[in-house]
């Protein structure tokens, strides 16, 4: 019997130099491989992780990738079609709608 499909929400607020990046990437990859839905929200310094290989490949595997537009602007991250750039309302919805929510700060 297969596992029930669940929604995993992840928040990443640290930059590419922090080990959180690898943790979030592997956790996301594993969850996707098991058939779960992954919603990743990058905020603050985490917006700088958008172009890292660890994060950039996740949408092609089915992850839904959101980036804090305010944080991206502050960090000088270009706003384009690589991800959904949005506000905290989306994070609020993720927190409400996901079965599990983990913050990596």
């Amino acid at each position: 019997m297969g596992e029930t499909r669940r929604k995993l929400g992840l928040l990443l607020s640290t930059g590419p130099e922090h080990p959180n990046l690898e943790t979030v990437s592997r956790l996301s990859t594993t969850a996707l491989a098991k058939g779960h839905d992954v919603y990743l929200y990058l905020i603050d310094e985490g917006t700088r992780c958008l172009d890292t290989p660890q994060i950039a490949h996740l949408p092609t595997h089915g992850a839904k990738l959101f980036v804090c537009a305010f944080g991206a602007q502050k960090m000088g991250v270009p706003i384009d079609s690589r991800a959904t750039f949005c506000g905290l309302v989306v994070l609020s919805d993720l927190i409400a709608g996901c079965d599990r929510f983990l913050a990596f700060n």
Partner: protein
Amino acid sequence: MAARHILVLVTGDPMKTARPGEAIRMALGLGSGTHRVSVVLRGPAAALLFPEAEESACADEVEKYLPSLAEALDPGFYVERSALEGRDLAESEFRIVPVDPPDIAKLMARADRFVIF
């Protein structure tokens, strides 16, 4: 979607990093919808509520977001009691609820979601 009780625990030093200010902005954003937000300040993060915050690395966020967040918090900001030692609470314009680590543990146990900055 279900409303959640979100606990935002801030431990960073606002005199050294802007991250506590980002936590404040996020707490305000998350609490402006249906969720209930509680904020706990530990250690150096307590400085956010005192006049020196005007000189901190997140002075802009403190000025823009802290008053609105304070209005939304019931009963106020939870602050680790040991972080208040040597401080005069009358110097803060915010409602402060001193708490000990066991109280923080209880708050965490009651919350549905945690964001630790």
